[in-house]
C-alpha cells in the first residue's frame, strides 16, 4: 500500500507482517476485503481512511499491507 498515490482507493488482499502486527491491523479495520482510501502519501507516514476513521501508518507497516487497486 505504500506505493499508492494520494487519493487512491484500494482493497486489502493480505497482510505480510508478524502475527501480532497483522492481528492489530486487522482489528483496526484492515481485514481482507475491506476498502481503504489512501488520503495522503508523500514523504513520511501514510494517512489512510478505513471504516470511517483516519489512521496514520508508518511506511514500513504500509508496505506490509498488500492491496488491489480499485
Amino acid at each position: 500500500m505504500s506505493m499508492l498515490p494520494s487519493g487512491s482507493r484500494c482493497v486489502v488482499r493480505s497482510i505480510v507482517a508478524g502475527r501480532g502486527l497483522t492481528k492489530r491491523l486487522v482489528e483496526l479495520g484492515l481485514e481482507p476485503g475491506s476498502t481503504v482510501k489512501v488520503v495522503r502519501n508523500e514523504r513520511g507516514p501514510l494517512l489512510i481512511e478505513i471504516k470511517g476513521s483516519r489512521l496514520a501508518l508508518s511506511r514500513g507497516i504500509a508496505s506490509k499491507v498488500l492491496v488491489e487497486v480499485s
Partner: protein
Amino acid sequence: MEELRKVLDEAKNRLIESFGLEPDVLLPDIRYRVIEEIVSTSIIREKVELTLTDVIDDAILNKYLGIPVFISLAWMMFQFTFSVAAPIVDAVDMFFSWIGEIIGEYISNSFLASFLADGIVGGLGTILVFVPNIFFLFLALSALEDSGYLARVAFIFDRVMRKFRLSGRSIIPHLIGFGCNVPGVMATRTIVGENERILTAITNPLISCSARLPVYVLFAGVFFPDNSPTIIFSLYMLGIVLAFLISFVVGRFFLKGRPSPLIMELPEYSMPETRTLLMHMWERGIMFVKKAGTVILAGVIAIWALSNLPLGVKSVEESYLGILGHIMEPLFKPFGWDWRIAVSIVFGFVAKEIVVGALGMIYGVEEEALENVISQTMTPLSAYAFMTFVLIYVPCVATLAAIKGELGWKWAIFSAIYEVILAYLVALMIMVIGGVMLS
C-alpha cells in the same frame, strides 16, 4: 491439555478450509461482518465525502504549510501563556513579598521569622509564581489537543523524530519543556513505545525551560551586552541539539529493541468546548501543583535550613551551605567559579529560577546591584560556561520527581548522573575551546 490442543488445531484447519483465513484473522473479519449487518440498517446516511477535517488536513499537512503553521501556533501558545499570565504572576509575586515583610515585622524571633518568611512563604512563593503560567500553558495545550491538532503535529514530525529514536509524539513534551520541564516529562505518558517514552523524558530537561531564562538574561546582559539575544538563542539551540544527540546515543547504545512502528489515529477536528477545556486544564494543573509543589517546598526549606544553620550563623559563608560551597570549589576551578557560584548551583538544583535570587542573597546585594558584582568575579568565557552548565546540569528536583513518577528511580538517577557529567564536560570544552580561540 492435549485434547484441547488437538481440538484447537482441528478447528483451525476446518476454518481455514471453509473461509480461507486463519482464525486469528478470521475472527476479527467475522466481527466486522457482524458489525456491517448491524450498521447497515442503523446508519441511515453516511458521512459526506469531503469533510471539514479533510479540508483542514489538506492545508495543515501540506509540505510547505505544515511547519510554518506549527511554528505560528506554538509561538501563539507561548505568547498566550506568558503575556496573559504576566499580570497575575506579578500580583502573586507582590502578594508573597508583602506577606514576607509582614512576617518580618510581627515576629520577633528572627530565626522563626526567617523560617516562615524565607522558608515557607518563600517556597510557596516560588511555586505559586509560575503556577498561573502553568495553568495557561495547560489551557492552550488542551485546546490544541481537544481540537485534534496535536495528533497532526505528531504526524508531521514523525519522520524526523524517528532518526533520533524518538516518536512523532515526542515533539509535544519537548515543546512543553520550553515552558516547564515538569509538565513536559509528564506529557511523555502519551507516547506509545517504551523506548521512545524513556528517551523523550530523560532528554526533556535539556530543553531550556522558562526558569532558566532569568539566569541567561542576567549573565548575558552583563557579559555580552551587545549580543545578549544571540547568546541566549545559542543556549536554547545547544539544549535542543544536545537533546537529540543524547536521545540518539542512549537509544542506539543503551536501549534494546527496535523503534515502535507508527500506528496512530487522527481524530476529526472539532471545536473544543469551554467547560471541557477548563476541566482538562484544572485536572492537569492541580496534579502539577501537587507533585511539583510539594517537592519544591521541601527543597526550599532544605536549602533555607542549610543556609541558616548552624544557629546564629552570620553570613551564608559560615553556614552549612557555605561550607558545602567551599568543598565544591575545587571542582569548579577550571571554570574560574568561586564558592558562591557553587552555592548558587546547589540552589538551582531545587528550582532554576531561584538561582538569581540566591546569588543576590549570597553576595548580599539587591538584584539590581548584582550585575556589578558579578562582572568582577567572572570572565565572559567562564560566564558562558556557567550558563551552559545551568542549562545542562541536573534537572530541578520537581523534574526529577516527574521522571521518577513516569519511569521509576533507575531512570531518574540515570538522568541526574548523565546530566551532571555532560554539563561538566560541555562547560569544560567551552573553557578549553574558548581559551584556545581567544589566545
